[in-house]
């Protein structure tokens, strides 16, 4: 076979890079300098990174997972007509279209993510080949802004940034607001830790987001747009910036788009690392050059927003759906989902799950189906314990409620929220009190400090949780947590404070026995809370390898090399960091 005709496509989202895509590309260049290499964004199968796709000169497609520089020579060999295919790495091939690995994508319905992983994000012609910029062309030629809003109304899409507010309603406010200057902002702050769909979209399919922004801008009558992208996403900033430039050069974006009277331009504003800046009014303050402090609503940004002008802020994933909706019709989108939640939703799976990554499914799918059929079940062999949904504003759903269907009302009924779609999966090794403390530390740190309930209330909550984790609490402290929950929820100025107690409320509701174990028995059942656990070495299992001694950062381990069972931990020195547990290959370290 002629290697000149081989096309190699390597996944190079941030997660691909983290898994070593640069080394893989280097290896391809070294062993087969004649082949063509292209890079694409993250297809969402993060557990299979580095993912490499090969198109041979017979038009056949092969996809390999977990490729390293070491597997590259064998892959090349096979495609040059020598040797066997690399079966254990093969996800998809003409003969193997139903492999269980492929099922990951096969089970999904991809609308927002339709292009990610298929096109080179730095190539505008790649996007155009996949119907790119067709929707904007159609609306400026054939549709009035009101018709666009009507189509979005038919689709029934609700904002994907967290609150789930109907998109067309918000647009209508802005459309009807007085003023010749209006703004459209793309919210790419993605502050919710554990969610990464917006990163993947901005990085892997930036033109789709630009087109989505143009559609929204046309509908509300905005001529200027801002893309607010968080500082932690340098690749997203880079790819999005290039996409804006290319769209300009090709005349897709800018003055008098497609010969119409519609003009639109986009500027990137990089975030600077403040969670609260994802909130609309704080985001506006941040673009204006101030501290990202939220303000009281009303007036809503749709009436008085950026620089005092009517402004619409839409989430990245919301925008990603718009070109598809225009091209396929609102009804086609609304055909997916349930009565109260239409369309599809992207979830980011991470934590104790076998196949972490991005998953897009129709609304109404059960949580269990996402975690088991697509996610492949728990990664550790231990059963699932809970899934955290909605980040710091959300809550924990216990395994017993995994048959809950994914729709706004049903998720809210559990005490969690849909949020932006981060799903952190947990097994028995996560302590729910520690998790609640983690979230409270997060909100406490991220509170802008403007209102007292949020600033002081979350601090008091964190202090109580710390007391519980340290084994110094009383049962009455749980009542204090309940009381704070109520007050902070009611009295805070913005969504950050209003939802900050949620992780505490849901863990208290579903995992109360774990709180009680900490308080009554001074015990951490998951073995996480440092003040309540001890590390010991089981002499019978110790093979005398000395790894634990080498790793111990405080010199708390003594023993004699090569002498079985000789190692012990000096408890007075031990800081319970868990390094010995992590490096011990013979499971001789006990955590209790």
């Amino acid at each position, binding site marked *: 076979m002629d290697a000149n005709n081989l096309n190699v496509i390597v996944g190079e989202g941030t*997660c691909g890079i983290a898994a070593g895509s640069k080394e893989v590309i280097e290896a391809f260049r070294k062993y087969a300098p004649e082949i063509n290499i292209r890079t694409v964004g993250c297809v969402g199968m993060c*557990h299979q990174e580095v993912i490499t796709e090969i198109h041979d000169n017979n038009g056949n497609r092969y996809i390999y997972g977990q490729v390293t520089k070491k597997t590259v020579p064998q892959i090349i060999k096979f495609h040059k007509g020598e040797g066997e295919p690399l079966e254990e790495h093969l996800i998809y091939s003409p003969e193997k279209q139903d492999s269980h690995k492929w099922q990951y994508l096969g089970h999904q319905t991809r609308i927002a993510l339709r292009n990610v992983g298929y096109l080179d994000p730095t190539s505008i012609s790649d996007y155009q080949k996949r119907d790119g910029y067709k929707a904007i062309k159609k609306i400026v030629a054939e549709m009035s802004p009101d018709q666009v809003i009507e189509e979005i109304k038919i689709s029934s899409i609700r904002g994907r940034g967290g609150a789930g507010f109907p998109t067309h309603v918000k647009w209508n406010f802005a459309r009807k607001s007085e003023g010749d200057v209006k703004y459209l902002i793309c919210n790419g702050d993605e502050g919710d*830790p554990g969610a*990464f769909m917006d990163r993947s979209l901005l990085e892997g399919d930036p033109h789709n987001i630009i087109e989505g922004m143009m559609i929204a801008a046309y509908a509300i009558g905005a001529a200027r747009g801002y893309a607010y992208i968080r*500082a932690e996403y340098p690749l997203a900033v880079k790819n999005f910036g290039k996409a804006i430039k290319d769209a300009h050069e090709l005349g897709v974006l800018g003055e008098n788009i497609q010969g119409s009277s519609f003009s639109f331009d986009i500027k990137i504003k990089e975030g*600077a690392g403040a969670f609260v800046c994802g909130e609309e009014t704080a985001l506006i303050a941040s673009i204006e*050059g101030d501290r990202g402090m939220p303000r009281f609503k009303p007036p809503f940004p749709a009436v008085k927003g950026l620089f005092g002008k009517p402004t619409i802020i839409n989430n990245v994933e919301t925008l990603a759906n718009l070109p598809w909706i225009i091209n396929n019709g609102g009804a086609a989108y609304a055909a997916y989902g349930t009565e109260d939640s239409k369309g599809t939703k992207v979830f980011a799976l991470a*934590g104790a799950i076998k196949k972490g990554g991005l998953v897009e499914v129709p609304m109404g799918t059960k949580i269990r189906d996402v975690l088991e059929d697509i996610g492949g079940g728990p990664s550790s062999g231990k059963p699932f314990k809970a899934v*955290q949904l909605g980040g710091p504003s959300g809550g924990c759903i216990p395994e017993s409620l995994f048959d809950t269907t994914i729709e706004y009302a049903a998720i809210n009924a559990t005490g969690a929220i849909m949020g932006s779609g981060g799903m952190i999966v947990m097994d028995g090794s996560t302590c729910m009190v520690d998790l609640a403390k983690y979230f409270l530390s997060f909100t406490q740190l991220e509170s802008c400090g403007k209102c007292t309930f949020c600033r002081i209330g979350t601090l008091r909550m964190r202090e109580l949780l710390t007391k519980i984790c340290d084994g110094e609490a009383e049962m009455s402290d749980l009542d204090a947590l309940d009381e704070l929950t109520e007050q902070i929820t009611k009295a805070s100025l913005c969504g950050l404070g209003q939802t900050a107690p949620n992780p505490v409320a849901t863990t208290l509701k579903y995992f109360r026995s774990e709180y009680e174990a900490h308080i009554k028995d001074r015990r951490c059942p998951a073995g996480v809370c440092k003040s309540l656990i001890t590390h010991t070495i089981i002499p019978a299992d110790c093979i005398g390898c000395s790894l634990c001694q080498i790793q111990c950062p405080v010199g708390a381990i003594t023993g004699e090399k090569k002498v079985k069972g000789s190692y012990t931990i000096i408890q007075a020195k031990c800081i319970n960091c*868990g390094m010995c547990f992590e490096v011990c290959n013979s499971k001789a370290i006990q955590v209790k």
Partner: protein
Amino acid sequence: MSQALEAKVEPEVVLEWIKKIGSDSSSTVPLLQAVQSQYGYLPRAAMDLIVQNTDITGRQVYGVATFYSQFRLKPVGRHIIKICHGTACHVSGADRLNTSLRHMLNIADEEQDTAENGSYTIEQVACIGCCSQAPVMVISDEVSGNLTGAAAQRALKKHAKKSEEIVANL
């Protein structure tokens, strides 16, 4: 902190940024970002230059610089290690990365984050969007995932060798 880490600010450079980025109040964040990407932190002299040569007030510059977690007011080491402390990384053991690397760099004082010899600064950051590969860290823009404390040490060792840095507890 060793005196050597303090940056020398050339006024021409800062004035050039102001010309390029703008001098109205909405340029505050981008200007500080430019300063920080050059010096690794916000030297006092650079902030003063901004106040003197734009419409931005001292109150605003200082307010913004202290509000956003990205901005640092203290000099940093030659390389920055960012350890993710997002939820996925937290439940997968981000703490152990922190303990092991601090040990390796001999940063015992909890208030400190830079190694004595000015080589590395350890920083806690919020989610870097690689949650499916948690726990994750970034050394000088190189992301690596699925780490254990020991694997993080190996990555640091490799980086130190490549960039000819001395690490205390190798």
